[in-house]
């Protein structure tokens, strides 16, 4: 029962704040609504018993990504100009509506083989074992390290003042 209430409440917050991001003209308020959306998503992860992902979501997306976006909104002075839509509003709405209906139809008509086993809890140690015990994910960690360092260098090069 508590799970049900939490799910519906968090879903309402997520969908409402995402709609607010699209609807909102003021860019700064859109960024604040993005933070609300991320926090509610972390709540969804908690009720899906994915505690580590929830913590990572709060630390990385709410703590770093949203702050970066707010900072860049302030640096580009777009708050005053707002975020107008282009002419594609109606066709895009129809296309996205058809897409959503198709996906939801597919989800409802598929019979998922849902497992009855209780989930692993807490997940942090299990995730670390899975990442590092040679089940093929070590290479991906190395790759993401290379990607992160190249992203940092790329951002510095892009934003370096030209003499």
């Amino acid at each position, binding site marked *: 029962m508590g*799970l049900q209430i939490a*799910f*519906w409440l968090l879903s309402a917050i997520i*969908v409402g704040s*995402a*709609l607010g*991001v*699209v609807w909102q003209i003021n*860019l700064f308020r*859109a960024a604040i609504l*993005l933070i609300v*959306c991320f926090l509610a*998503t972390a709540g*969804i*992860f908690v009720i*899906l018993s*994915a505690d*580590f*992902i929830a913590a990572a*979501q709060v630390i990385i*997306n709410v703590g*770093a*990504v949203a702050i*970066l*976006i707010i900072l860049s909104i302030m640096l*580009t002075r*777009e708050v005053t*100009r*707002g*975020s*107008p839509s*282009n002419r*594609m509003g109606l066709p*895009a*709405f129809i296309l*996205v509506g058809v*897409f*959503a209906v198709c*996906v*939801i139809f597919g*989800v*409802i008509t598929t019979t*998922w*083989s*849902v*497992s009855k*086993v209780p*989930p*692993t809890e807490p*997940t942090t140690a299990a*995730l670390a074992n*899975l*990442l590092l015990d040679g089940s093929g*994910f070590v290479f*991906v960690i190395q790759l*993401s390290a290379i*990607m992160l360092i190249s992203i940092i260098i*790329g*951002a510095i090069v*892009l934003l370096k003042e030209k003499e």
Partner: protein
Amino acid sequence: MAPGLEHYLILSAVLFSIGLFGTVVKRSAVLILICIEIMLAAVNIALVAFSRFITPVELTGQLFAIFVIVVAAAEVAIGLAIILALYRQRHTIDTKKIDLLKW
């Protein structure tokens, strides 16, 4: 009854559609990035829901969600760097006025 897999997948689909709509329709480059972030959050919800309901013990879906978060953070960093560089050069981030590659 507790919410099942379909509930989470429908929530994910709705959130993804909202993000897609914003990405296509909005003109501010920062807002397009925000909407891409919303789409990635929707994908994460779907991945974690599959991990919880289909393979509750193996956690592979949660691992994929971690990698999605890593790539999303990197994408935001480089995207905002590009936007700031564009703003320095052209003094706008309106995607209608950024038409260097348009013919």
